Structure formats: structure tokens, C-alpha cells
């Protein structure tokens, strides 16, 4: 499936170009602001102001009125990072807590999605039915995370007459029925895999488009020289794909920090609190346990974790690098 080239982020044309007959009048100079103002107003009220409010709230103890009840300094953060085993538990090995779960997601979700997506992209480009394969893999991207959750609840059902996973594991492979979502040791990986299933399509499509951008002559030359497919992949394709791979990795990383829906639908953070992630903790603490200040501290931590991406985006845009 061919895609048009992405709009390249280049700087705008010089004002007026070379054909302008007269200088910009005062009104015209600010007319641009008029175009931009509605968007800026909406952003200021409904995005920037709330972010500021939440950051401030993180330093307070709050209650069901969501007001600034009682100044706490950094106590919320201290408690989160040192005194809340549901969030961060370094006292045992392997460590536990929602933050550690996100770390698990970072490692396994990103690497699995990349490996499978890249592998599929590389293989599928060699067959004529590539488009069909891409479509099949990509379909889950259109599905809401809620529905993905329902789909995989059915797949992971403990009863091997209902759940495909156990039908294979128990019915075909003869093992004991596994409670995929009830076993604290594997529930996180079960969830991760469900989300990988939904995300691989994106990786595959992006990398497939990028692979098609690799000039054939280079690869043919390498083949003529006797290089094996694996070496071609490692030494030629991979380096040329490093930019798209990094773009995809950043997208996957952002997904990890924000993942919520699938946990809410499939396990509610359970069993107990073993499958919690930080976005879910924020929700629980704010709306269930009635501690909005504490929840706001979690939101701030999310912002902090995502800030490097923000910086990267701005920097990349500034230096006008081509996206893909």
C-alpha cells in the first residue's frame, strides 16, 4: 500500500515573498494573530490552565471539592516514591508497584511491538499479497481500547471452552488451565501482549513505508557481492531505518505512559493492585480514594516522564529534520 509522502516540516515562506507591493500595514501584521486566537484561547483555558492547576494541586492535600486544602510541599511525592508499595515497591525482588509495571511495559511492549512489526514489514514487502497482510495486522488499530479489552477478556477466559488461549494451552498442549488475568505473575504480560496485538499494525505500516524508500540498487549491489539476507538486513536496512524506528519507538513510549483503558476494562488494576499502571493509579487515587492532590502528584510524574519526548519533538522540529 503506497502512501503519499508525509508533509515535511519546513519553515514557512518569508513574509510577502518577493512580490509584495507594499509593506504590511499594522492591521495586517496582527491579522495572523486573529486567525490563531480562537485556537489559542481554547488551548489556554482547556489545556494549559488545567495543567498548571494540576501541577499546583500536586503540592497540596485535597478533598472531594478538588480545592487547595492544605499545603504539603513535596509530601505527596515523597509518599508516592517511598511509602506507597502500590506505586513503587523497591523492598523486594523483583520490585513491584505501578511505576515498575510501566517499566515492564516500556521494556516488553516496545520491544515486542518493534520486533514483530519490523519483522513483518521486512517479510511482507517480498510478497504480492503484502497489502492484505498489512490490513489484517492493522485492523486492531481502528478498534477502541475498550473493545480490545473485551476481545482479549474472551481470549484469556480461564474456561478452555470459551477462551482461545486456554483452548490451545490446555486442549491442545495438555497443560493445566491457566488463569491468565488472575495470576499476578503473568497478568501484566498478558495485558502487554493484548496491547501489542493492537499496536503492531502501526509499527508495520510506518516501517513498511520506510523500507520502500530504501533504494533498490544498494541492496542489489550487496546481494551481487554475496551478502546474505540477514547481513543486508542488519548492515544496510537497519541503519537506514533508524529514524523511522525512533519515531515509532517514541509513539510506543507515549502509549506506555498513558495506557489506561485496557487495564480499566480487563483487570481494574487487579488482582489486587498487581496490574496497575500510573495512569490507573492517578484515576484510583483521585476518584476512588478521594485524594486528588495525591492523584495530581501522579499526573505530574506522568508529565515528567513524558517531558523528554516533548523536548525531542520541539528540537526535532526546530532543526527541520524530515520525519519519514
Amino acid at each position, binding site marked *: *500500500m503506497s*502512501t503519499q*509522502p*508525509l*508533509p515535511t516540516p519546513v519553515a*514557512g*515562506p518569508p513574509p*510577502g515573498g518577493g*512580490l509584495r507591493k507594499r509593506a504590511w500595514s499594522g492591521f495586517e501584521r496582527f491579522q*495572523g*494573530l486573529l*486567525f*490563531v486566537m480562537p*485556537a*489559542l484561547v*481554547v*488551548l489556554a*483555558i*482547556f489545556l494549559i490552565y*488545567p495543567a498548571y492547576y*494540576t501541577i499546583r494541586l500536586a503540592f497540596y492535600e485535597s478533598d472531594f471539592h*478538588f480545592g487547595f486544602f492544605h499545603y504539603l510541599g513535596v509530601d505527596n511525592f515523597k509518599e508516592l516514591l517511598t511509602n506507597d508499595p502500590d506505586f513503587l515497591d523497591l523492598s523486594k525482588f523483583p520490585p513491584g508497584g505501578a511505576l515498575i509495571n510501566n517499566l515492564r511495559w516500556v521494556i516488553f511492549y516496545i520491544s515486542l511491538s518493534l520486533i514483530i512489526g519490523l519483522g*513483518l514489514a521486512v*517479510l511482507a*514487502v517480498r510478497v504480492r499479497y503484502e497489502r492484505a*497482510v498489512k490490513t*489484517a495486522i492493522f*485492523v*486492531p488499530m*481502528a478498534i*477502541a481500547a*475498550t*473493545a480490545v*479489552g*473485551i476481545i482479549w*477478556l*474472551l481470549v484469556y477466559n480461564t474456561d478452555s471452552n*470459551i477462551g*482461545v488461549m486456554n483452548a490451545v494451552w490446555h486442549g491442545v498442549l495438555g497443560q493445566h488451565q491457566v488463569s491468565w488475568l488472575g495470576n499476578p505473575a503473568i497478568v501484566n504480560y498478558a495485558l502487554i501482549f493484548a496491547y501489542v496485538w493492537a499496536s503492531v499494525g*502501526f509499527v508495520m*505500516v*510506518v516501517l513498511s513505508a520506510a523500507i*520502500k524508500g*530504501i533504494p533498490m540498487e544498494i541492496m542489489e549491489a550487496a546481494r551481487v557481492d554475496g551478502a546474505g539476507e540477514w547481513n543486508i538486513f542488519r548492515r544496510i536496512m537497519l541503519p537506514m531505518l533508524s529514524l523511522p524506528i525512533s*519515531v515509532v519507538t517514541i*509513539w510506543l513510549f507515549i502509549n506506555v505512559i*498513558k495506557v489506561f*483503558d485496557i487495564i*480499566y*476494562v480487563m483487570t481494574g488494576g487487579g488482582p489486587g493492585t498487581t496490574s496497575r499502571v500510573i*495512569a490507573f493509579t492517578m484515576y484510583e487515587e*483521585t*476518584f476512588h480514594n478521594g485524594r486528588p492532590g495525591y492523584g495530581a502528584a*501522579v*499526573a*505530574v510524574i*506522568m508529565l515528567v516522564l513524558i517531558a523528554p*519526548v516533548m523536548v525531542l*519533538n*520541539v528540537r526535532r522540529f526546530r532543526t527541520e529534520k524530515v520525519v519519514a
Partner: protein
Amino acid sequence: MATVESAVPIRARTRSERLVRLVSRGPLHIALIGIAVLWLVPTVGLALTSFRKPPAIASSGWWHSFTQWDWTLHNYDSVITATGMGHAWVNSVIITVPATILPLTLGALAAFGFAWVPFPFRDTLFLIIVALMIVPIQTSLVPLLKLFANHGHLNNHYYGIWLAHTAFGLPLAVFLLRNFFVTLPKDLIEAARIDGASNLAIFRRVVVPLSVPALASFAIFQFLWVWNDLLMALIFVSDPSKQPMTVRIPYLLSTYGQEYNLLAAAAFLLMILPLLVFFSLQRYFVQGLLAGSVKT
């Protein structure tokens, strides 16, 4: 740009050459087709389950339903009428359409300003908006809930969630559309300016018609994003009669948690529209997604 086939080896010609190729590439085909089929299994399973009766679901896996032709539409009927999913579907539409049109409009206007109408601090403001693209919605839940409640009970209507979605969709809209607008031919715009057209006229008559692909890409991306959203609706639409499908389906889990026939039908109702959009407007969707790869 290289052609579509650039990374594919030259095709075999004679019949025996083709046969040899087929056999030697057997594992490749098996792997690819196998994985593609595997990937479809979960969705197909849900689809089949939505057409089965409860006793059948409990006693045999959906993979048996190919041989046991006992299908029914009753689940969809129950789900639409008895559990209020039909109503929730309408709510989803009510929430999604304005939440797509608003950021599209405001974003296009702003993008045009950033692309073709110079003004002080233009580049700085644009960079700020680029930075805002990844702010997580968690930072908005509490303050907006309070804001909406205190000012006109916007939570009791859809205005609250429309505005929230607009705000979070704007950075991507502005980024994507602005990047597209600057690729438009400079001469066209200059010519229009020389003819005395106002900026607004240029926007309406020159830029917008030429930008349909980019506008469509963002619109589709935003449409699916809002349609599939759970958390914002969970917090900002607390009136049960206004909640969209993504919020009502988890409710089914608690009261009918074992009844996969209903869950499957409800999930499919949720999925139908996005899947339709995806299959019919695939090109635009993928483009929107690719450009949105920087959005959270």
C-alpha cells in the same frame, strides 16, 4: 521517491522458476499468512460469539460455531434495546462529530495563520503548540471537572466534553495542517494577494480546497480518537443518559460479566463505525496516523 516495488527482488519468469521460488519461499509464506491469520483470530472470535446463544457459548468454543450453525441476531437486539447500547451509540455520535469539526475548523484557521500570515512571535507560539501535543489528559481531569461544574454545569451537557476534546485535538491539528499548508504553491497565494483578496478569502478559496487530503486525514484521525476515547468521557460525561458506548460497555461487565453474547455484540457495535471508516478511507486514516505519530 522510489517505486513501490523497490525492495522486492525481480520476479521469476518461467513456470519451473516460479515453482522453485514458491517452494524455497514456502516458510516465508507460511510465516506471513500464519501470523496474519493469527492476528485476525481474536477479532473473529468476538464476532462469532456475538451471534451465538448463551448456552452455546458456555459449552463450546466459538471455533466450533463453523460446524454448529445456530446463529442468532437476538444478542444485538437485546444489547441495543435492553441495555441501552443503542442510545449510547447515538451519544457517541453526538460527542464525536462536534469534537471533530471544532478542532478541525479552529486548527485549520490557526494553521493558516502560522503558515501564511506573518505576525510577531509566530514561530515561538508554534513551537509552544508543538510542545503541547503530548500533554497527557490526566492533567486536565480534575481542573476541568471543577471548571465545568462551577461555570454553567457544562458537565450536564455535551459542551464540556466537546471543549475538552477540542483542546486536546488542536495541537495535532495545528501541527499537521500547518505543515501541509506551507507546501502549497507560494505563487498561488501571492497571486491571490495581489488580486486584493483578504486573508480569509485566501483561506476559504485557495487553501482549503487544495488541502482536502490533509483535512481529511486529521478529521478521520480525530474522529476515531474521540469515538474510541474512554477516560475523558468517563470523567466529563457523568450523566448516564449521555454516556457514549466506550463508557457503557465496561458497565455491562459488572452486571452481565459472564454474558459474552451481550458483551461481544456491544463491542462489535462499538467497532463497526471505526472499522467502516478504516476500510473505506484507509489511505487518509493511515496518513493521519503517520502524522499523528507525534500525538499522544
